[in-house]
């Protein structure tokens, strides 16, 4: 008997030393998201001694992409990583570095999609007929308006259409001091998500700007958006450089914001926080008022790397986290960002957050209308071309909106074809 016991102990030791499967898991270097993952990973590791998650945040580098790519090159990449935006996922998929989840796990994948009510959300993530990313959160980009300043100027609802924005601008603009709206998001390539693409989605009910690997944004919607930009800059109703926190400082009455900004405003400008009015992006004048307005989704997800040795176990972990809506409830509580699921406003589990926080409720109600960017491998070049040939010429009034659109589409198509 004693001998058997000794043997058993030895066996258990061997299993625990050699039989443990390790899965390296990286998450976004963001304190709130760390707070979310820490207890979850701990709980899993306690319940699954044979499959241990080695969790860490994406190492410090210039960007998540840089950190992940250099780690892959060095052979020390993660098995699972979160914080992957669509364009990077497309690049990783093209390299063969990540696994098509629907192909690898079949019905198991669709079960998770169903459990998380992601049937609609996942549609925007298809790449060559497969799904490489499990979207975690989806931030609908919405306009914040200063209720106090609007009312001061005699406006009791935020402007809905371009003409209404112009009318407001005529009234409130004080050159070099106050502008109606911020439309130009910045000079970086990613800024196009937060100006042209958002307004294009709003004007077009979420129509793609790149279709079948061809740029199509020189259509009627693109023209309306470009003219909106042109008019605002021509009349001096907005400016290029508005300094830090223009919304909070009252330099602008309205601008596009993401939900991650709520905590910041609440902490640094508590008075301003109280008078935020959330509205969808402005739309062209002929946009029917009964139709919902679409917007851009700043959305990130997780991917499973093809170098992962224990794919099944890794998937089990992913499934364990995302099949449980309680985890998404905790996510909302901590990060204030809507999980990428279609039932936030209807599922009773999230009722508490929707009822207690009108800002979150407003944000969550647009998750269904938030469209992710085009899944292309050349995001940076395409959006640089948009900056150089469309936005900048229009903003600096160097060419007409129509000319700029034509040129930009031509340049973007060159880039898309060169791949």
């Amino acid at each position, binding site marked *: 008997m004693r001998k058997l016991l000794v043997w058993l102990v030895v066996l258990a030791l061997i299993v625990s030393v050699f039989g443990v499967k390790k899965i390296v898991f990286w998450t976004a270097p963001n304190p709130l998201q760390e707070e979310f993952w820490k207890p979850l990973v701990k709980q899993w590791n306690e319940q699954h001694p044979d499959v241990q998650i080695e969790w860490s945040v994406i190492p410090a580098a210039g*960007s998540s992409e840089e950190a992940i790519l250099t780690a892959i090159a060095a052979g020390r990449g993660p098995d699972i990583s979160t914080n992957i935006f669509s364009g990077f996922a497309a690049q990783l998929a093209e*390299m063969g570095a990540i696994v098509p989840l629907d192909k690898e796990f079949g019905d198991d994948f669709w079960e998770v999609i169903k459990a998380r009510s992601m049937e609609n959300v996942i549609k925007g993530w298809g790449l060559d007929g497969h799904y490489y990313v499990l979207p975690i959160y989806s931030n609908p980009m919405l306009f914040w308006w200063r209720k106090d300043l609007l009312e001061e100027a005699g406006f009791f609802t935020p402007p809905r259409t371009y003409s209404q924005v112009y009318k407001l601008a005529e009234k409130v603009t004080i050159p070099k001091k106050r502008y109606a709206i911020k439309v130009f998001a910045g000079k970086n390539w990613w800024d196009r998500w937060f100006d042209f693409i958002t307004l294009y989605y709003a004007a077009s009910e979420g129509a793609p700007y790149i279709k079948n690997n061809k740029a199509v944004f020189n259509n009627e919607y693109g023209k309306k958006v470009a003219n909106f930009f042109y008019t605002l800059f021509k009349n001096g109703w907005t400016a290029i450089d508005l300094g830090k926190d223009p919304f909070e400082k009252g330099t602008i009455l309205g601008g596009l914001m993401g939900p991650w900004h709520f905590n910041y405003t609440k902490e640094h400008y508590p008075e301003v926080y109280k008078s935020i009015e959330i509205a969808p992006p402005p739309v062209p004048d002929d946009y029917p008022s009964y139709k919902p307005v679409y917007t851009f989704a700043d959305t990130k997800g997780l991917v499973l790397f093809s170098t992962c040795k224990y794919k099944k176990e890794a998937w089990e972990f992913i499934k364990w986290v995302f099949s449980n809506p309680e985890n998404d409830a905790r996510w909302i509580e901590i990060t204030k960002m809507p999980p990428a699921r279609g039932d936030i406003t209807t599922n009773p589990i999230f009722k508490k957050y929707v009822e207690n926080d009108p800002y979150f409720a407003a944000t969550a109600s647009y998750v269904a209308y938030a469209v992710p960017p085009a899944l292309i491998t050349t995001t*940076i070049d395409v959006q640089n071309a948009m900056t150089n040939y469309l936005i*900048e010429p229009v903003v600096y009034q160097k060419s007409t909106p129509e000319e700029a659109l034509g040129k930009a589409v031509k340049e973007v198509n060159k880039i898309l074809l060169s791949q």
Partner: protein
Amino acid sequence: MSLRRKEKALGWGIVSIYLFYTAIFWGYPFIWMFILAFTKWNFFGKPRFTGFNNFIKLFQDPVFWEVFLNTLRFMLYFLPMVFFGAMLFALALNKMKYFKSFVALSFLVANISSGVAYSIIFQNIFSDIGPINRFLYDHFGVTIPWFSSPSLAMLTIAIMVTWKFVGYYGLILYSGLQAIPKSLYEAAELDGATRWVKFWKITLPLINPAVVTVLILSINLSFGIFTEPYMITGGGPMNKTLTFMMYMYNTAFRRINPSYATALAIVTALINFGIILLVRRTVEKEVSIV
């Protein structure tokens, strides 16, 4: 063991630490650089040999030439500004009787402060509604589009970088000034030399080594600008502030083309080196103070 062999062993023993270090941190990347430059690789899998393809593509790349011109333009603004500023600083420091170290240290603070932090501060100072533009607008009715004008943005960045390096370069020039014996000036004064003549005939020729050092450092710097445009302008407007470093970084990590980025790095280094050779040929003089 004979003494000779012992000494030999000791010699190799001492040198081996350096050799080992160099092999890992210099040799390995150097070889890897050549492999990358002549292949196509995407961080994953094996590099594919493509010969001089990357280099041929590079010289046909309009963005490369744009970046090249941007760098030249940056040097055109930066070199005179920083040199003039540093010279004034050094001359003033040389004249000062009290608080010398305090002043020198105050100027050095700019040099050690975080690029990210001061980029954010400058961005606010120079913004369309920042304090400078507010002042100009209130008093003169004009504003200057510091970062938003394609022709001004690089100048604004050059001003920021000058601010950062005036103190450091000034100290290098100052140490050059210190080495000039006072007797030379006294002799010149006896001969009736004016201040201007003394500066041109004694000071400037004798601090030539310091001048060359400052020039080389600032040329190198011009090829290595990254943080300021990355943080503030993103290379815009109209690509007018895109620098070699930014282009390399984006090419390697955003376009996932480390091979092309490496070819770019090699060519950039060669241009940098060529300009330095040229400057040394034209400016450097043998100086000996007896």
